[in-house]
């Protein structure tokens, strides 16, 4: 018990999330042993993939401080998916669909970055604005209709399962998280991000190109959302103008739950990954137990308050 009390920051959050995750699993095991099959694992990972990528983008933007937040991620996912499909309808060769989605995401993210860094608009307001612009544009371009015609080779990748693990999760989510973790922990780049989140003024004084770095981070968040859009296409077989619905708040919840400090400079991608897993496992578990979905929203909220409270209290103990 004492050892847990000594944990702080990311380590405490990770321990807490792991503990909560084990509790969820145990409760499930007791109430419904039949849940535990490879199929359930596949389901959880399948529904985690998109959220994990978007939450990672959200996390790095918040981590870099300057009141950074990206409320437009859901809009970017919707619009990149639609942009890719429409480009293909206009004659883009189908093998260019993956880069098209990712480039669209990068461009939309970069636009956020320009608003925030060059025009100095508060990120909350800038990305709230672009959220409405992007998701509105996705609906307007399609009239609300789903865009079919995803090439079948992409479906093989998107719906494939390799020893219980969905292929998109294996080939995109895991590598991306590994790279992000390594960059943040062991490179100068990673240190810069923490430094500018922790104290922007000092970061500028020691010569870190804060604005340029931030612009790149917003673009990266866009790239990750574009990748999420691509996965949604490959998995569902059609581009839907509202596919990114609710992702902005869910990704924010995952980032906060994962121990990213809202003011930046503190937290790690491991926590974000654990938080995504916990959220999706919890949701799956409640669904398997046929708990009314109305309750699930409240339970996720209560969980967020609880974890943040634990984090807060641990700082007071110091």
């Amino acid at each position, binding site marked *: 018990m004492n050892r847990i009390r000594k944990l702080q920051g990311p380590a405490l959050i990770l321990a807490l999330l792991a503990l909560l995750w084990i509790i969820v699993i145990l409760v499930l095991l007791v109430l419904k042993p039949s849940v535990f099959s490879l*199929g359930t694992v596949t389901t959880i990972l399948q529904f985690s993939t998109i959220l994990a990528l978007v939450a990672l983008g959200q996390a790095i933007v918040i981590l870099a401080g300057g009141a950074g937040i990206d409320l437009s991620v859901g809009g970017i996912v919707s619009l990149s998916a639609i942009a890719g499909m429409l480009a293909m309808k206009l004659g883009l060769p189908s093998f260019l669909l993956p880069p098209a989605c990712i480039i669209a995401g990068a461009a939309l993210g970069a636009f956020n970055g320009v608003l925030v860094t060059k025009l100095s608009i508060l990120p909350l307001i800038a990305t709230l604005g672009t959220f409405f612009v992007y998701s509105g544009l996705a609906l307007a371009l399609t009239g609300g209709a*789903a865009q079919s015609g995803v090439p079948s080779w992409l479906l093989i990748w998107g719906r494939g399962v390799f020893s219980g693990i969905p292929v998109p999760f294996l080939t995109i989510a895991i590598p991306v998280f590994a790279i992000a973790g390594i960059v943040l922990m062991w490179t100068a780049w990673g240190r810069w991000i923490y430094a500018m989140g922790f104290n922007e003024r000092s970061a500028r004084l020691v010569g870190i190109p804060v604005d340029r770095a931030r612009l790149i981070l917003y673009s990266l968040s866009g790239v990750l959302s574009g990748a999420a859009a691509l996965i949604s296409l490959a998995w569902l077989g059609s581009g839907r103008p509202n*596919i990114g619905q609710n992702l902005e708040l869910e990704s924010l919840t995952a980032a906060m739950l994962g121990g990213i400090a809202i003011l930046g400079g503190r937290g790690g991608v491991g926590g974000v990954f654990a938080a995504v897993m916990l959220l999706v496992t919890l949701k799956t578990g409640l669904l398997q137990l046929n708990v009314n979905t109305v309750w699930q929203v409240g339970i996720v909220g209560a969980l967020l308050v609880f974890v943040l409270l634990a984090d807060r209290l641990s700082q007071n103990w110091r």
Partner: protein
Amino acid sequence: MLKHIRKALAISALSLAVSTAAFAQDKPKVAFVPQLIGIPYFNAMEAGGNRAAKELGVDFIYSGPVDTNPVDQLQIVQNLIDQGVNAISVSVLDASSIAPVVEAAKAKGIKLFTSDSDAPDSGRAVYVAQATDEGLGNTIIDELVKRVGEDAKIGIVSGEATASNLNAWIGFMQKQAAAKYPKLKLLEPQYAGGTAERAAQISGDLMAANPDIKAIIAVASTTCPGVAQAIETAGKIGSVIGAGYCSPNTARSYLKSGAFGFTVLWDPAQLGYLTVWAGKQLIDGKAFEAENKVPGFDNPVTYDATKGILLLGPPAVFTAENVDKFDF
């Protein structure tokens, strides 16, 4: 610490024993996944489903998303498949998204079918239809023309822009208007999402922008109160009439105040009943016949084998005169 763990283990073992005892009954399970929970329409379907479950001897599971998000709905369906529910019916939010789960269900030998809203090319086992989309679209236009005449401007307020059933009805309204009433002018449909407030705002704007508008059609059941409220607030009762696909309980006060001329719908409780009945037939491996006798139904239920559609019956028109005979 160890003591705690031992205690926890003992408790879990105990509850495991209790829960297995509780789950020991072996009735076939039929699930229905609505587009949205907590609205009267799907509540009525749930009630009908529960009644059928009791009478037909099956377990009925009712679970749906809290807002109209197709991925959330997909996740619920996927989890029902993982649970091994015998038959799953879905009121599809987005026809294209259902394809992956249909495959997953087939792989596990689960009967997946649609009810209330269809996904025609998904490979579903059957579609339990409330009424044909064509019948619904035509009825509302025909009834409106009876009231406002052929030379009229009519607004359309729908729910989600992506809901396939709503879009199909709008399509048939436009077709019927173009084919039978060339002078009728249908405005571009407006989408209010799931809220009545937004529908009220849109309807208010429609009336302000088109002073000569004669009627507004509320396509989604959630938009009816908004449209009616807007007509009442604007003081246009008598000069603009509302109409739509909403339940008698939702529309009763508006039908009586005159803000609504009529509504077109079916009985969702019967639809819920028929859905569970169809699930039971599929589980039992019984084929549908061209005309099926369903307990509690006055008329036999028709089945269209080429399209795979089980049809509840013709749509009903509710007006101020007959609305009190219904309660849903």
